[in-house]
């Protein structure tokens, strides 16, 4: 599919062949950057997969490696200043070590990305339509300028921009924040990609616009049956959008499972911390807001053992100094197989239900009884 690019959609053919299997498989991915102060391991031993039509949410704080790992999928790291090991297979193609020329064929075609800051990601000197048309023509060299423009207008219409035949000639600064993000989404989807990576797609937007964009992403996903990775620090967005959740902390996956499972039976104290440090718009006002103490660790000198242990309030429930000495493996949660967690605690679910939940959501405890 990378040798010849015709105007017919190569992604479409590949998709029908491979329906059912995961479109993206990441295995034991490690990304590190050499710096003057020593190597920074931004991502370590990360594995996940995404199937067609599914949404994976990656959640974590800044510096947890969530963006770095997905940029590796697109091959956006400079080979000279980064070391990538492990395996990333997009639609069966190994991406790690792929030549730039072949990578370029993949990028924007099979995999595309929506960036957080649409104003910075769109070129201020070129018209929206020209930027959209370029993205189309790069992967459809036989398409005429007129075809590309028609396609651009069609995509703008698809993402809900009013009067797309006129707005196609606007410059990015003439669009509002929400419209720019829509234009970014249109650009990401113009080649009908199998995998769409959305890096904080709504962080810079107002709640009402955020709701519009999330609805749009869901509608488009249903329509195109593409796989979506949504990277965010907002558990609310995850809760509404994602089928599966991957919680990252200090470059590692610390919890992985279905969204419902992770949000109702989290087994890693960092996830508990995330859940208890966000107020809820509907919850009882007796619910406590419990922050995670301290700051995220520096990846130059990550803590020994479990990287969360300096901020964890449950280390005393683990025998000895296990937390600070030994990195816990990513193991299946007690009762459920499709739920992985990286924690030494023996009975985390019991601790969560007994100690954490009553503080952060007293009304849910009542319901459970």
């Amino acid at each position, binding site marked *: 599919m990378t040798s010849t690019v015709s105007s017919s959609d190569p992604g479409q053919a590949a998709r029908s062949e491979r329906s059912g299997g995961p479109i993206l498989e990441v295995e034991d991915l490690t990304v590190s950057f050499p710096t003057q102060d020593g190597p920074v391991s931004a991502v370590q031993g990360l594995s996940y997969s995404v199937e067609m039509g599914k949404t994976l949410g990656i959640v974590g*704080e*800044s510096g947890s490696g969530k963006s770095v790992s997905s940029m590796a999928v697109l091959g956006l790291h400079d080979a000279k200043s980064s070391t990538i090991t492990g395996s990333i297979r997009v639609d069966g193609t190994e991406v790690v070590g792929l030549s730039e020329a072949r990578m370029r064929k993949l990028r924007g075609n099979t995999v595309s990305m929506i960036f957080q800051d649409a104003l910075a990601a769109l070129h201020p000197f070129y018209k929206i339509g020209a930027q959209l048309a370029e993205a189309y023509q790069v992967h459809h060299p036989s398409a005429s300028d007129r075809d590309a423009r028609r396609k651009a207008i069609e995509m703008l219409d698809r993402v809900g921009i*009013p009067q797309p035949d006129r707005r196609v000639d606007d410059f990015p600064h003439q669009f*509002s*924040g*929400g*419209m720019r993000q829509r234009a970014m989404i249109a650009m990401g989807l113009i080649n009908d990609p199998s995998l769409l990576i959305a890096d904080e797609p709504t962080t810079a937007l*107002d*709640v*009402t*616009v*955020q*709701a*519009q964009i*999330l*609805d749009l992403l869901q509608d488009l996903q249903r329509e195109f049956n593409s796989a979506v990775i949504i990277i965010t*620090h*907002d*558990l*609310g*967005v995850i*809760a*509404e959008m994602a089928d599966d959740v991957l919680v990252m902390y200090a470059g590692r996956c610390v919890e992985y499972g279905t*969204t*419902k499972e992770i*949000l*109702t039976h989290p087994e890693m104290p960092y996830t508990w*911390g*995330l*859940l*208890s*440090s*966000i*107020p*809820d*718009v*509907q*919850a009882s*006002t*007796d*619910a*406590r*807001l*419990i*922050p*995670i*103490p*301290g*700051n*995220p*660790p*520096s990846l130059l000198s990550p*803590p020994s053992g479990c990287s969360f242990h*300096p*901020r964890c*309030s449950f280390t005393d429930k683990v025998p000895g100094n296990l937390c600070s000495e030994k990195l816990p493996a990513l193991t299946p949660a007690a009762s459920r197989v499709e739920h992985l967690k990286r924690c030494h605690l023996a009975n985390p679910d019991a601790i969560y239900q007994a100690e954490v939940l009553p*503080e*952060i*959501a007293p009304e*849910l405890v009542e319901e459970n009884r």
Partner: protein
Amino acid sequence: MTNDPNVEAQIEPTEVGANSAETGERDLSADGVEEPHDFYADHEVQIASDYEGHVASRLDPNAEPVLEVEDLKMYFPVKSSGLIRRTIGHVQAVDGVSFQVPRGGSLGLVGESGCGKSTTGRLITRLYEPTGGSMMFEGRDLAKVSQREMKPYRRELQMIFQDPYTSLNPRHTVGSIVGAPLAVHNIVPKNKILGRVQELLEVVGLNPEHYNRYPNEFSGGQRQRIGIARALTLNPKLLVADEPVSALDVSIQAQVVNLLQDLQKEFDIAFLFIAHDLAIVRHFCPEVAVMYLGKIVEIADRETLYGRPHHPYTQALISAVPDVKQAAIGGRRERIRLEGDVPSPINPPSGCRFRTRCSYAQEICAKVEPPLLQIGKRHKVACHFAGELGAHPATPVTTELLGVDDQGNATGTTSPTPVTTGPGYENEWFDLKTKQLTSA
């Protein structure tokens, strides 16, 4: 708690004097020279409570207002291009806003970007000069005073900014940033500034030994604490917090919100809390005002505003907030989709400004602007069809008050009743069911 350098900033406050209850009073003595050293020493802010967490702030219904804003307006001129730059219009950023901030309490101001909430905050701190209206603070109208006369009030009225990366001068040490207000206002002899700065750093949970470091050596959350320490330096009575946590990581947001709650309790500071995050505002503010295109469309106590909002815009805003706990147990709330974008404040829609995006809008909405009507003990709303979600009335509720018919044309038979638009709440209010003035 631990020896890890990453949590170094979370030092427990050392025993700096007994935490006696009777010292809660601020002593800005008449001559202006206070004893600041004792002031902070007598307060032991519970930084340790970072680990405990806080419940939402409670409303004190009897608190006296510390700030009364009435009919505040800010129009920014729009100039034509070319040689002679004539004024060709005005951006009506804030257009007739009235509210109260109770002493030691907090009022939340929410709305979409461009609704004028930040401008309101900047007007109160007089970073802008208001076009009209009044802002009563300590018996003086801050809207009328000159910049020179404003200086003493700046001690009592401070601001916390949104972006901790741009609001601190990168070439100044933390000591000089936090100490600058002391030097400007000449309150403390020069040789005592450092001691005061260190106390402040301790109050906000930073290591006092770090006074000679530069902002770039701190993380985002720590920088925001520096900004808070700077705002606290002069013992303000009112803090305008403009999106104080939106630039921070989720886990750090909660730390800063808890710190602000501690400081509020300890020093009896009133907050005007401006944010777009409705959940954070709900936690911090017992009273919340919703702004749209420069006007307050609904203002109420927390339970009313979030539980049974009466304005279609508030309802849409609240329904748009993703709800983690709801989604976790499977149910996704029905969202009210707002179409389109906020109209331009240069040329706002006639009548009700929300009508262009409102699904309940009728003819009257384009003709008559709905007044901000008090419809409950602590509840005001500006809508002709005010009602709970799904129970909006079919005919406008305001016709009799305004002397118009259902289409918004003046009837001439009933004379308009004057509608109070004062900053506070009245004892009598307009009951939506009976359409009569009632009281509790």
